[in-house]
C-alpha cells in the first residue's frame, strides 16, 4: 500500500507541474506588455531614445525577455525571483489582481471557503440520497418503483444545470418565496461576521444552489450506483455467498456492496469534478461569492493573474480528488492494495 500511495503522489506532483506549465504558457499567448503599460504615463516627458532605453531596462528588470520556462519557474517559485528571493506560487504568492487592486490571495480566501462549502455540502447530500436509492433500485430491479426512478433520472441528467436552476428559481423563489433569489448574504445585514446569525443567513442563501446542485447530480449517480450494484449482484461470488446460507441482507450489503463500491468510487471522481465545474454555473446563476463567480469576473476583465490562480485551484482540487479516489480505491480493493 505504501508503495502504491507513493507512486500516486509522485504522479500527481508531476501532473501538477505539467498542467500548471501548460496553463502558464497558455496565458503567455495573450499579447500584453506590462513594461509599456508602466512607462506609458511618462512617455511625453521622455526623449524617444531615452524612452526606448528605459523600456528595455524595465523589460529586463521585470524579466519579460527571459525564456518562458524561466519565467514559469520564477512564477512557480522553483527558482529565485527577480528580487533574489523565492517568491512564487509555492511560497504562497498568487500574484496581484488588477481588477480588485489587491493581492490575489486576499481576494480569493472568502470565495474559496464558500465554494468548498457548497460543493462538499452538495456532494454529501447527493451521496446520501443516491447511494441508498441506487441500491434499493438494484435490489428491486424491474419493479414499478425502479422503473419510475429510472425514467425520472433521465430527466435529471439530461437537463443542463442552468435550466434546472431556472425551474427551481421559478418555484422556490418566485412562486413560493421560500429562498432568496441571489447573493451570498442579505444586503446591509447588521450581524457580526462569524456569529450564529451570519451562519444562518449564509445557509439560507446557499440552500437553493445546493439543492439544485444535488438535484442535478441525482440522476446520473443513481443510475450508476444501480447498475454497479446490479452487476455485482449478478456475479458468481454472490451465488457462492447465497449457497453458503447467508441471509439476503448480508449478501447484498456486505458481499455485493463492497464490490459495487469499486466502480462507484471511480465515478465519484468524475462526478465530483463535474460538481466543481457545475458550481461555476451555479455561482454565476445565483450570484454567489465563490471561486466560479470570481473566475468568470476575472476572465471577463482579463485579470489573468487572478484567473491563473483560480485555475490552479481547480487543478489542485481535481488532483487531490483523484488522489483521494486512488487511496480509497486502494482501501476498498485488495487487488490494488496487496501485491501478488
Amino acid at each position, binding site marked *: 500500500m505504501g508503495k502504491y500511495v507513493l507512486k500516486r503522489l509522485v504522479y500527481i506532483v508531476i501532473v501538477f507541474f505539467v498542467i500548471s506549465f501548460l496553463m502558464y504558457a497558455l496565458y503567455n499567448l495573450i499579447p500584453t506588455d506590462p513594461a509599456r503599460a508602466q512607462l506609458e504615463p511618462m512617455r511625453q516627458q521622455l526623449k524617444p531614445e531615452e524612452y526606448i532605453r528605459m523600456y528595455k531596462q524595465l523589460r529586463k528588470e521585470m524579466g519579460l525577455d527571459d525564456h518562458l520556462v524561466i519565467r514559469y519557474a520564477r512564477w512557480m517559485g522553483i527558482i529565485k525571483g527577480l528580487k533574489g528571493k523565492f517568491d512564487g506560487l509555492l511560497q504562497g504568492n498568487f500574484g496581484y489582481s488588477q481588477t480588485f487592486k489587491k493581492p490575489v490571495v486576499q481576494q480569493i480566501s472568502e470565495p474559496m471557503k464558500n465554494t468548498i462549502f457548497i460543493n462538499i455540502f452538495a456532494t454529501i447530500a447527493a451521496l446520501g440520497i443516491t447511494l441508498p436509492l441506487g441500491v434499493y433500485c438494484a435490489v428491486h430491479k424491474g419493479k414499478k418503483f425502479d422503473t419510475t426512478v429510472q425514467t425520472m433520472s433521465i430527466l435529471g441528467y439530461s437537463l443542463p444545470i442552468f435550466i434546472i436552476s431556472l425551474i427551481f428559481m421559478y418555484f422556490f423563489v418566485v412562486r413560493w418565496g421560500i429562498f432568496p433569489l441571489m447573493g451570498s448574504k442579505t444586503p446591509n445585514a447588521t450581524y457580526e461576521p462569524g456569529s450564529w446569525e451570519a451562519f444562518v443567513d449564509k445557509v439560507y442563501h446557499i440552500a437553493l444552489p445546493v439543492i439544485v446542485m444535488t438535484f442535478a447530480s441525482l440522476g446520473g449517480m443513481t443510475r450508476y450506483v444501480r447498475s454497479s450494484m446490479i452487476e455485482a449482484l449478478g456475479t458468481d461470488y454472490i451465488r457462492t455467498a*447465497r449457497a453458503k446460507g447467508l*441471509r439476503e441482507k448480508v449478501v447484498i450489503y456486505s458481499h455485493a456492496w463492497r464490490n459495487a463500491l469499486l466502480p462507484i468510487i471511480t465515478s465519484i471522481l468524475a462526478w465530483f469534478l463535474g460538481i466543481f465545474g457545475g458550481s461555476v454555473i451555479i455561482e454565476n446563476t445565483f450570484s454567489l461569492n465563490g471561486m466560479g463567480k470570481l473566475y468568470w469576473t476575472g476572465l471577463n476583465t482579463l485579470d489573468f493573474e487572478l484567473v491563473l490562480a483560480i485555475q490552479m485551484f481547480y487543478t489542485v482540487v481535481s488532483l487531490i480528488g483523484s488522489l483521494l479516489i486512488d487511496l480509497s480505491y486502494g482501501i476498498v480493493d*485488495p487487488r490494488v492494495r496487496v501485491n501478488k
Partner: protein
Amino acid sequence: MSLLEVRDLNTFFRTKHGIVKAVNGVSYTVEAGKTLGIVGESGSGKTVSAMSILQLLDTNGFIESGSIKFDGRELTTLTRREMYEIRGNDISVIFQEPMTSLNPVFTVERQVSEPFMVHQGLSKREAALRVLDMLRDVRIPNPEVVTKQYPHQLSGGMRQRVMIAMALACRPRILIADEPSTALDVTIQAQILKLMNDLQEEKGTSIMFITHDLGVVCQMADDVAVMYCGQVVEMAPARTIFGKPQFSHPYTEGLLFSIPRLDTPSDVRLEAIPGAVPHPLKLPDGCKFAPRCKYATERCKVEEPELVEVQPGQGVRCFYPDLKERRKDG
C-alpha cells in the same frame, strides 16, 4: 430411502420471448455416501436442476411443479428462512469458475469462516481456527499464510480447494459439485478430483457431480443420469454405462463414442454428435433428440418416448433402447 429424491421436477424461466422450460420432468436420486454423476451438453439443464434443489435460481426462474425430498423432508415448500438453514449446512455447492466464485474483496479466512458463523454460531476467533483445519483438510500448504490472503493471490487450483473447504465446512450431507474441474488445467483437475474422492471416503458425504465430461463421471460416479434438453434420457449405474451395456440411449452412445481420456485437453468438446442443442424455445415435438439421432424414425418425430425401466436400475427414454436391435435396424 434415498438421501435426496428429485421427482418430476419442472423448472421454468420467464423471458421476454416466452417461457423457457429449462428442466422438464426430471427425476433422480442421490444415495447416502454415494456419488451421482449428471452428464449432458452445455445447456441441457444440469445446473438449473441442481440449483432448484437449493432454490438458488435466477429471479426469473421458478419451480413449476415436482417434489424434492431431502432426508424425507420436502424442500420445495420450505420458507426462505428454513432454506437458509439447509444451504451450506446440509447441502452445499462448488461452482465451475474458481476464478470468479470467490469474493475478490474478502480474505480467505473471512469467506471460509462464514458458514461456521452462520450455521454453527461460532465466534470469529473460533471460526478462524476451524478455517485452518479445513484448509489443512483440503491439502492447502501453508494454511496460516493462505488464510490471510485474498483470492487474487491464489492460483486456480488453490481457489477451488478453498471453495471445497468452504463447501465442506459444516460437514454437509450432500455436496453439489457443478463442473468443479472444468476450468482447471488437466493436472490440477486430476488433483481436485482425487481430493474429492478422498474427502468423500473420509467424511462420507454424498456427491452430486455435474459435468459435461463422461470421462470424469466414469472416474467419480456410482450412478449416472444423462440429461438432454431438460430431461433425463438415461439413468443407470456407472458400471452399466461404462461396461458393455445391453441397453443404452443413442445420446449416451454418442457421448461414449467421443469420450476423452484424461490426457486429452479439456477444451476438446463433445463434438462427435452432429448438430447443436435446439434452442430452448424451439424444442422439437416428439423425441427431443430426434433431429440429431441417427436411429430416428417417423414415430420419434411425432411421439415422445417415456423414461422406461429396461432392466432393474436402468432407465432409458427411447423407443429403441436395445443397442443390438437398434444397430441392426439402422
